[in-house]
């Protein structure tokens, strides 16, 4: 009898382990009825719930755009907060469908980690946040400093490279939980907090005394932040990729959440194709023809989500900079939607 039970349990285990990677993500998402998005959870401006518990931020809105494209409802989504160390494993193991968690696109991650990165949704660079009391003017004066840094990030590697290249010494303090790390930094455990400049702005915005801290002018790395999916799932990658691109293209075409209904009547063929008045794009992606319309209607164009998440009227006060449209001297550029 006992043996029978053991056999049954073993059988179930075997059956379960086989299904882990079966099926395409898109089919799984449709069957589930919602998209599972891995987000930061602690990063003001990118992924953090506000005081009412509503998720806010650029990455969060990117996730909502995907949900709007797939389901026509930006709220058919489940956010899973992940630390930097957990994020890729969560994606690899199928715990989430897409990772929108300010992850830097690198060659190693694209290949050895088995990830596929979609269109960059924020061009960032690594900087240093210091207390004004230290009277440091630039990063070259940081020799011997204690540096607070998140483990498992490209940031951690860049800062080691930078100090090594400039023959300076550093003492890292690495805490996996970003909130704990920022707390330690603002309590004075470290001289410097290093991260992507946008994150530093986010950390400073929620600091006890934001005016006591300054971001040094040096930017020591390129950090293209992009949503990621599992390698080899081409249809899902296309959907995620074009959901981000749709927000950029909408801004480029002058379509916003406010005027999108009027734009349906536009005579511009590019706008007609984009909004699905002229069909074709939706079918090609395996979605219905209104997918891009719904992204703009429910979430907004790229300029809108930028301004409400991290723009000049938010505590982060970030300029568009590299994230402006290509027409305005930035890097945001979408291929034609045809």
């Amino acid at each position, binding site marked *: 009898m006992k043996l029978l039970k053991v056999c049954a349990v073993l059988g179930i285990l075997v059956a379960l382990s086989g299904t882990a990677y079966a099926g395409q993500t898109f089919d799984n998402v449709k069957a589930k009825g919602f998209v599972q998005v891995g987000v930061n959870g602690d990063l003001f401006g990118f992924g953090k719930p506000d005081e009412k518990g509503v998720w806010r931020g650029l990455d969060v809105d990117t996730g909502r755009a995907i949900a709007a494209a797939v389901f026509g409802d930006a709220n058919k989504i489940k956010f899973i907060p992940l630390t930097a160390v957990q994020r*890729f494993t969560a994606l690899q193991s199928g715990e989430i469908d897409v990772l929108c968690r300010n992850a830097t696109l690198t060659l190693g991650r694209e290949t050895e980690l088995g990830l596929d990165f979609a269109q960059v949704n924020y061009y960032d660079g690594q900087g240093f946040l210091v207390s004004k009391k230290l009277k440091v003017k630039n990063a070259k004066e940081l020799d011997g400093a204690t540096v607070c840094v998140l483990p498992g990030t490209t940031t951690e590697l860049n800062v080691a490279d930078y100090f090594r290249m400039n023959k300076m010494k550093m003492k890292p303090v690495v805490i996996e939980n970003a909130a704990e790390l920022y707390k330690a930094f603002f309590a004075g455990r470290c001289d410097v907090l290093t991260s992507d400049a946008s994150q530093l702005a986010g950390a400073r915005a929620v600091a006890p005394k934001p005016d006591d801290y300054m971001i040094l002018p040096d930017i020591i790395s390129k950090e293209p932040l992009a949503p990621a999916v599992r390698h080899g799932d081409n249809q899902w990658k296309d959907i995620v990729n074009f959901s981000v691109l749709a927000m950029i293209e909408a801004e480029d075409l002058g379509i916003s959440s406010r005027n999108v209904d009027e734009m349906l009547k536009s005579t511009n063929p590019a706008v007609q194709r984009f909004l699905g008045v002229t069909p074709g794009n939706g079918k090609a992606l395996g979605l219905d023809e209104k997918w891009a319309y719904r992204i703009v209607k429910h979430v907004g164009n790229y300029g809108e989500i930028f301004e409400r998440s991290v723009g000049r009227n938010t505590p982060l006060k970030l300029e568009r900079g590299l994230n402006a449209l290509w027409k305005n001297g930035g890097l945001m550029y979408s291929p034609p939607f045809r």
Partner: protein
Amino acid sequence: MDERHSPATAVQTRRQAAFLSDPKVRAIVYQVAALGLVGLLGYYLFTNTVANLHKQSIATGFGFLTKEASFEIGETLIDYSAADTYLKALAVGVLNTLKVAFIGIILTVILGTFLGIARLSTNWLVAKLAAVYIEVMQDIPILLQLFFWYSFFYDILPAPREAIEPMTGLFLSNRGVVFPVPEWHPAYGYAAAAFGIGCLAVSAVRRWARQRQERTGRIFPVFSVSLGLLIGLPLVTWLLAGAPHRMSVPELRGFNFQGGMSVSPEFGALLLGLVIYTAAFVAEIVRAGIQAISKGQTEAAMAIGLKPGQILNLVILPQALRVIIPPLTSQMLNLTKNSSLAVAIGFPDFVSVASTTMNQTGQAIEGISLIMVVYLCFSLLTSLFMNWYNKKMALVER
């Protein structure tokens, strides 16, 4: 077939039946079958995992160990820089875990023994204080205690430039505790060697003293002679080598203190948290061990004229240790395993370094198996040592 069997076949059938109904044989058959199934399952899971990893084009294998780690580690016992390999980074992590476990176990046993005895004290205040400590510390989760001690370091203590200096050269700041240490000189090496020789001499003296006592009944003052050997020998060596006494005194240069020796807030908080938490459990074990010895034994020992120290050493402890050692071993293991909570407060222990490695290389399965193997080794080694000690301490029945 008709019902007639030849006698030989009948015997054979009966023998077969007997063979299968023999509980011993059946037990073996079942066990072999179960083992085979588990083996098959393991093989299936392994090949399935490898196939899936391959399908997702995730790198596998331990080749990453020889690649450049290119991340810095805050505290290292051996020379390490970002240019070293992942293997060396992991070695740094193992040593850091060993450091905190080793120092932690020693302090825990001392503090726990002290508390356990205090709880049995006849002094009402001492006993109650110990009882309150034990009950409170056992009930607060270790992770909360770690966060408390860590924030104690960085929230309450000032920045290095305003460090508190309670004694000349001793600085308390949110970068930790810095204190002066003697500057390195070969004389300290000689003194350490002399201490080793002292240890050997002490064990020889003890054996000789015991034999002499058994032969002649005369008691040799082993304790004071041992103390003299252990302290005197290194001291004399140090004096003969010229008594160097230059100190490396910490001073504030740039962002932080240079020179001297420092205990980082992360290490300090981890050590404090682990010791204070685990000592509460050890105290109860010690108390149980002492209470397991009936009072009659103490009275009997007193009746034959033994001194209190002798009663403890010759009567109580040998019996109490027998009760204390096995649960004490499991507390030591707990302390070692709990040290992996270091991740939460940023001490670069093995788990912290391994999880950074996992994240940078993306090889989670290899990383997790390394973590499991290393902790298994730690635990087995601790158990082996404690089992040996237990056997040595067990009562030899005559």
